[in-house]
């Protein structure tokens, strides 16, 4: 058991060794905490958070959750529970029951481990329920990770949620948010996300009423995810319009929320809003290397939405190391749209159909067809001052001249090109680069005010986001006090100095 426990720690040490040869000696003395120690340190933090009513400590514990989850296994959890609870605790038994029964060899290993490390003083008081919930959260994640039957994780998460609700403690809120995430994950892996929906909805109502922002934000995202997984865009849209996303929610939740909003808006053809939301999602998302999956998903959607808006996405996106490979199919689509070649577009769609299907962007991409045609017509109108409908038809691979006439007519009406159709002769005359003169006046002012608004908003948000340490002003006061006395001294010295100067002057 000691072996298992040490492995991840060893690995970490090795990494550090590579990184910094010189401080090897030091590292050995101060080896990184074992997962078990980390969990126990977290117990202390949670306890502190509850006793001082300071949620900051809980947040700190939860921040390490992802990295911790990679390191733990059942034995570590078992030991953490054994040592964290008094001997005859009912909670302990309940917790241990969720772990698979210990192997027989475990017993002797236990002796080994306890011999190696001095046994800590046995805990006699029952820890706060927050620790119980935290351990349950770890167990759920562990069983999801280990690939044991999902039913167990599902049962445990449902039970945990019920427990949270019956406890009804505000200090539990941020842990509860994570538990909901785990619950949703368990149901999703189990393939029956729809079953969890009524439970999530009820919990969302309660969370909203209690101003439990962490949980509410998490739950809204859970619900949106579950709706979108079943393509229930209508319900998702209604949920969004009926709820307000808590402003104090953390960045990861915001990023998710914006991504889901972007999805909904894109399906509803509201591309500019979708684009803003996706931009927000990208901005708020963790760095690409930490969460590549999310980063890729958002960018895929954002590329399609940008194309639908009639813009061409930045070339640099497709060179980004995290995005280059997964976005290859999308890059080809962009190329096809840019050149306005309908046949190339059609071929690319067919070629990457499976990819778009799994990304759920297929229907969005099929909508691009009209953009391809528009770009094609635009290119033609720029290149020719007069072109026959038949040539347009050939160049854009349209089915008939009749179609070409209607399509060009529509393009003229929509302001894509500036031109004129002459039906008797069967040609189109193009008047210069279309729509350039639209760029003046009110529109410019609008764009300007939008940008300024964005900058101001950014500034205000950053001001709001600043954190001031508690009681910092006291120190400042003390400093001021010190400064004042120093000033007095200085003034005195100057006075003395003045005298000195005078003396010197006198000497001369």
């Amino acid at each position, binding site marked *: 058991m000691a072996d298992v426990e040490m492995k991840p720690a060893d690995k970490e040490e090795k990494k550090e060794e590579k990184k910094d040869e010189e401080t090897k000696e030091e590292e050995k003395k101060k080896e990184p905490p074992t997962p078990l120690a980390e969990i126990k340190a977290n117990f202390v933090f949670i306890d502190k958070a509850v006793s001082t009513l300071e949620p900051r400590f809980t947040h700190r514990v939860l921040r390490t959750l992802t990295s911790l989850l990679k390191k733990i296994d059942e034995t570590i959890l078992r030991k953490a529970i054994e040592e964290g609870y008094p001997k005859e605790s009912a909670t302990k038994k309940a917790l241990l029951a969720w772990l698979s029964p210990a192997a027989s060899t475990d017993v002797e290993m236990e002796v080994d481990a306890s011999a190696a490390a001095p046994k800590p003083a046995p805990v006699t008081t029952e820890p706060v329920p927050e620790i119980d919930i935290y351990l349950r959260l770890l167990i759920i994640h562990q069983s999801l990770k280990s690939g044991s039957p999902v039913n167990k994780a599902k049962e445990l998460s449902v039970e945990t949620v019920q427990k949270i609700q019956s406890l009804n403690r505000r200090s539990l809120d941020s842990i509860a948010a994570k538990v909901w995430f785990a619950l949703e994950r368990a149901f999703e892996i189990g393939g029956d996300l729809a079953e969890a929906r009524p439970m999530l909805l009820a919990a969302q109502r309660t969370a909203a009423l209690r101003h439990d922002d962490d949980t509410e934000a998490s739950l809204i995202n859970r619900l949106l995810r579950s709706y979108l997984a*079943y*393509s*229930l*865009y*209508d319900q998702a*849209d209604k949920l969004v319009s009926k709820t307000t996303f808590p402003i104090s929610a953390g960045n990861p939740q915001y990023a998710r929320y914006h991504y889901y909003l972007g999805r909904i808006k894109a*399906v*509803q*053809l*509201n591309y500019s809003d979708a684009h803003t939301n996706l931009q927000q999602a990208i901005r708020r998302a963790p760095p690409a290397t930490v969460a590549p999956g999310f980063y890729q998903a958002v960018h895929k959607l954002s590329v399609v939405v940008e194309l639908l808006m009639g813009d061409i996405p930045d070339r640099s996106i497709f060179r980004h190391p995290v995005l280059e490979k997964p976005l290859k199919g999308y890059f080809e689509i962009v190329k096809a749209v840019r050149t306005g070649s309908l046949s190339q577009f059609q071929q690319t769609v067919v070629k990457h*159909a499976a990819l778009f*299907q799994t990304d759920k962007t*297929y*229907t969005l991409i*099929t*909508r691009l*067809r*009209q953009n391809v*045609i528009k770009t094609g017509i635009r290119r033609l109108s720029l290149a020719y001052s007069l072109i026959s409908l038949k040539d347009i038809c050939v160049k854009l691979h*349209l*089915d*008939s001249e*009749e*179609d070409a*006439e*209607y*399509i*060009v*007519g*529509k*393009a*003229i*009406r929509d302001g894509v090109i500036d*031109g*004129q*159709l*002459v*039906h*008797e002769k069967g040609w189109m005359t193009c008047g210069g680069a279309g729509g350039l003169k639209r760029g003046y*006046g*009110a529109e410019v*002012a609008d764009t300007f*005010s939008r940008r*300024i608004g964005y900058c*101001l908003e950014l*500034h205000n948000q950053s001001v709001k986001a600043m954190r001031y340490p508690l009681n910092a002003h006291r120190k400042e006061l003390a400093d001021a006090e010190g400064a004042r006395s120093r000033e007095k001294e200085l003034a005195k010295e100057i006075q003395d100095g003045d005298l000195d100067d005078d003396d010197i002057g006198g000497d001369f």
Partner: protein
Amino acid sequence: MAQNQLKTRYNDLKRSFEAKPSDLKKCGSLLAQLKIGLIETGLLTPQGEHNLDDLVVARDILEIGAIWSIRTRDVPSFDRYFSQLQTFYTDYSSVLPPSKNEYPIRGLNLIRLLTQNRIADFHTTLESLPIPADAIADNQYISHPVNLEQWLMEGSYSKVWNARERAPVEEYKFFVDSLMGTIRNEIASCEEAAYESLPLKDALTLLFFNTQSELLTFAQQRGWQVDLSKSTINFSRKGEEQVDIPKEKLISASLAYARELEQIV
């Protein structure tokens, strides 16, 4: 209403619906009674466990109701029936045997959204269909409205016009008329922008009119100048619109900037 009474009414309805031509009046009165029956047995909006056969019967009744509404040209009623059918199509889809009417009715709903120009709703509904997106082309009931939408968006109006005869179900044609009205207006607005003048004969074909008198009344509605001697239509160019400077907006924006700057500095 007793269960067996419901059954006999249902059989009655089925008979009179399948009879050719179906007895629309009788269907209507039967449907009204059946709906009361369904409410009493809790089958109109079922929740939880129900007898499978009962559910199938309830679904059949609602489906007949939906198609009946189209035949009697009652679109709001179709909307109601369709919403009620949603429960059967989504929540009970795993238990119930698939209905052969499901996709025709879903397709009808799509066309309805299209004719009412509710494009956003059209796409949301399309997105939530329980079939994979690349299988849409193989499903004739769904591919018909999907193609129509695509042609409308890109401007291939003649394809839409030609497709009206190729409706997969008789009921689709009901919507075609109102769809043609929409298209005609679309084309007309395109022509106003794209042509200076157009010979009457060509306008006739472009707008899919059969007789000149139809065209002339249409031209009158849109306020076109028809030159009968040369037999052309002249589209009056709308002069460059006078662009107003949005004074109030600019002032309020400048004041807002000033206020914000004050806060920052």
